[in-house]
């Protein structure tokens, strides 16, 4: 959709490229991929959840000169990667057996062979981001990728193919600065709060830093380049542009950053337990700090590998 939302600029882009496979908008089928000798640019959008998706990604990647991970899911796993907080069997159980409207006395799970003459492709044991499966040349993060960044990438690609301009491997088409760097809300020198607040617990002042109001915002660790639309809409950043350069694990980084940035009122006079309680009043740190980036979580990877 974000490509269609280039609006009229899309026509300029289309003018210099030829699309050979794009299921949402064109009728090329899988057999058309098989007939291609080579593909110049492949955009991979979304994360990889089924065996079939993995096969197609690998098939296309083999023929492609430049491979692009397009969007937060492709780059970092995205929100669907939150399924990897659980076992795939639990996820399937909830969806197909436990939900209150589902009638499934036989316990049928899609993707598992039964007596049906046709079966859905099997799920992989976890959700994968694109570079877990293939080598990626360019990352265009964001959910969705911002229009300006898409155009920037297209410009880069056209110059690469027409002028031979090199593209650094693993280029991330986003700012190296963080959201905080570009945010023009009022930021006090020291942030002192009485407590953390969830987004619905307070009427957020649009002129002041979210963190200064006790509302957790992922600005400190998130790349900019998105135009800060959420911030302008008076909602805190949830990290869809991915972590700033040199972040090793976004969740652990955010824990560290929050504690460094935020002081509680009368902190030295609080007991250890009281201070710990205040820190732990942040709900769902895993689902928040890794909202779009669980695929980058080293901790989660440890746990997943440990299960195998």
């Amino acid at each position: 959709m974000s490509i269609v939302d280039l609006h009229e600029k899309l026509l300029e882009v289309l003018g210099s490229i030829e699309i050979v496979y794009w299921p949402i908008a064109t009728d090329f089928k899988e057999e058309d991929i098989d007939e291609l000798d080579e593909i110049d640019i492949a955009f991979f959008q979304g994360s990889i959840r089924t065996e079939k998706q993995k096969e197609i990604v690998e098939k296309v990647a083999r023929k492609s000169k430049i491979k692009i991970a397009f969007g937060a899911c492709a780059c970092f796993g995205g929100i669907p990667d939150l399924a990897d907080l659980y076992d795939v069997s639990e996820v399937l159980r909830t969806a197909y057996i436990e939900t209150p409207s589902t009638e499934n006395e036989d316990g049928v799970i899609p993707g598992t062979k039964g007596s049906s003459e046709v079966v859905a492709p099997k799920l992989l044991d976890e959700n994968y981001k694109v570079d877990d499966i293939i080598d990626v040349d360019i990352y265009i993060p964001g959910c969705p990728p911002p229009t300006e960044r898409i155009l920037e990438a297209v410009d880069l690609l056209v110059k690469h193919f027409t002028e031979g301009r090199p593209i650094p491997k693993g280029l991330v088409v986003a700012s190296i600065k963080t959201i905080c760097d570009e945010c023009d809300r009022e930021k006090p020198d020291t942030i002192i709060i009485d407590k953390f607040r969830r987004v619905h617990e307070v009427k957020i002042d649009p002129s002041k830093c979210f963190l200064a109001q006790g509302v957790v915002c992922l600005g400190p660790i998130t790349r900019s380049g998105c135009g800060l639309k959420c911030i302008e809409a008076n909602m805190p950043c949830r990290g869809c542009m991915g972590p700033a350069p040199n972040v090793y694990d976004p969740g652990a980084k955010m824990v560290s950053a929050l504690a460094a940035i935020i002081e509680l009122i009368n902190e030295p006079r609080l007991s250890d337990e009281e201070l710990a309680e205040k820190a732990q009043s942040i709900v769902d740190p895993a689902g928040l700090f890794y909202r779009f980036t669980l695929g980058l979580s080293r901790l989660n990877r440890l746990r997943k590998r440990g299960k195998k």
Partner: protein
Amino acid sequence: MEEKDPRDWEPKIFAFLCQYCASAGADLAGVSRLKYPANIIPITVPCSGSVDMQYVVKAFEAGADGVLIGGCHTPSDCHFLRGNFKALKRVALMKKLLEQLGIEPERLRLEWISATEAKKFVEVVKDFIEQIRRLGPLKR
């Protein structure tokens, strides 16, 4: 590669010890010839507040089954004034994160150990090693 016999496993603890208090306390334990098990790998850091939780992640990845952070007593012993508060907040929140990711929060531990508390250092280390022994190796 040969499979290690699981019965041979020994808990491995990485300890980030602040220069002014905990690390000095550990040194004093050594100088005083207090015995403690060798399962611990001490790393001196300027301040408990300088320990980014990403180091904890790296420690787990590098083979630690438990991570100990040693700092100066709250409220007023920290050489850098508030570093220990930072560490406390970080460890508290990190434990919550670990739990959500299916890693036992007890594997991360924060203790205040002053430069003279050699005995406390030894007790903490012994206790932590046994705690980790009961938890078993971190699955990785």
